[in-house]
């Protein structure tokens, strides 16, 4: 599966012209990464599917507002991120939950950028990801799933660049430390 960093020809221009086939191709390309991102933030399958659907509908409606076709992926994730925020606000429990998780989250050493995970570590990886506070999890997911740049992540999450850097740094450190502890 292709990442955003890799060169790929997305039919954004055709989608802007309202071609259903182009939209189908774009949805197929992003549906699973978008779902993973949303699910890992909201932790509810039905809510995640609803958000993915709403994100696609919003994308069709507002595609005219997208200035640079190359930024389609980030733009789409930005819509999904906003919808996750709306859900959190509706449930009115996000802040307390995030703070509680943040207090129990380990902050450990930094390591190499490339991260490869063994089969026996996969479960541990998912568990750790789930234990991260939502802001760190969000940044880490965008980094892993689509290899978005820090600037893009800052744009998607509507967060200052410095904050994004810090969150990604601590999240990756925590992840590496846990994996090293399990398999030294």
């Amino acid at each position, binding site marked *: 599966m292709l990442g955003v960093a890799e060169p790929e020809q997305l039919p954004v221009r055709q989608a802007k012209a309202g071609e259903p086939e182009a939209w189908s191709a774009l949805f197929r390309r992003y549906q699973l*990464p978008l779902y*993973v991102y949303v699910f*890992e933030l909201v932790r509810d399958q039905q809510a995640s*599917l609803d958000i*993915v659907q709403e994100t696609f509908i919003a994308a*069709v409606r507002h595609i005219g507002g997208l200035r640079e076709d190359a930024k389609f992926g980030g733009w789409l994730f930005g819509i999904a991120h906003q919808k996750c925020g709306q859900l959190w606000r509706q449930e009115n429990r996000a802040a307390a939950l995030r703070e509680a998780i943040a207090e129990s989250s380990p902050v450990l050493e930094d390591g190499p950028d490339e991260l490869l995970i063994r089969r026996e570590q*996969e479960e541990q990886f998912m568990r750790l990801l789930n234990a991260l506070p939502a802001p760190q999890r969000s940044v880490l997911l965008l980094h892993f*799933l689509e290899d978005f740049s820090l600037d893009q992540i800052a744009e998607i999450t509507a967060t200052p660049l410095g904050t994004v850097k810090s969150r990604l740094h601590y999240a990756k450190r925590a992840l590496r430390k846990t994996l090293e502890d399990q398999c030294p």
Partner: protein
Amino acid sequence: MKTPRQILLQQHQPATQKLDAIRAGLVAAMAAKPAPETLSWRDIARSLRWHLAALSAAWVVVMILNIDHSPGAVAMIPRGKIPPPQQIWASLRESRRLLQEYSDAPVVEMTVVPGRRSEIEPEQVEV
């Protein structure tokens, strides 16, 4: 060895079917977008049927309110101003005499003034 991306996508692979269904539904809805309709006069009239019905009802009310229930103009003349039959008859006789004078015809004097119709006996009436 797998990348975090591979692990994440693999973990959620079972959701692909549902995502495919969502995608298919959206694309089908886009493809089935209805063409702009051309409105005929019948459609326009049908869309305005309630307005037309209301206007008709208003006109009926106006007509009902404007119906003149008073007696006719002839009946409006006061009875006291109607001249007596003798005077009408005399006036008629004078008119006929003047007419015959102008036409040089012999003037026939009518000496008998007909009585009231109610006074005429049934056997005098010619059928």
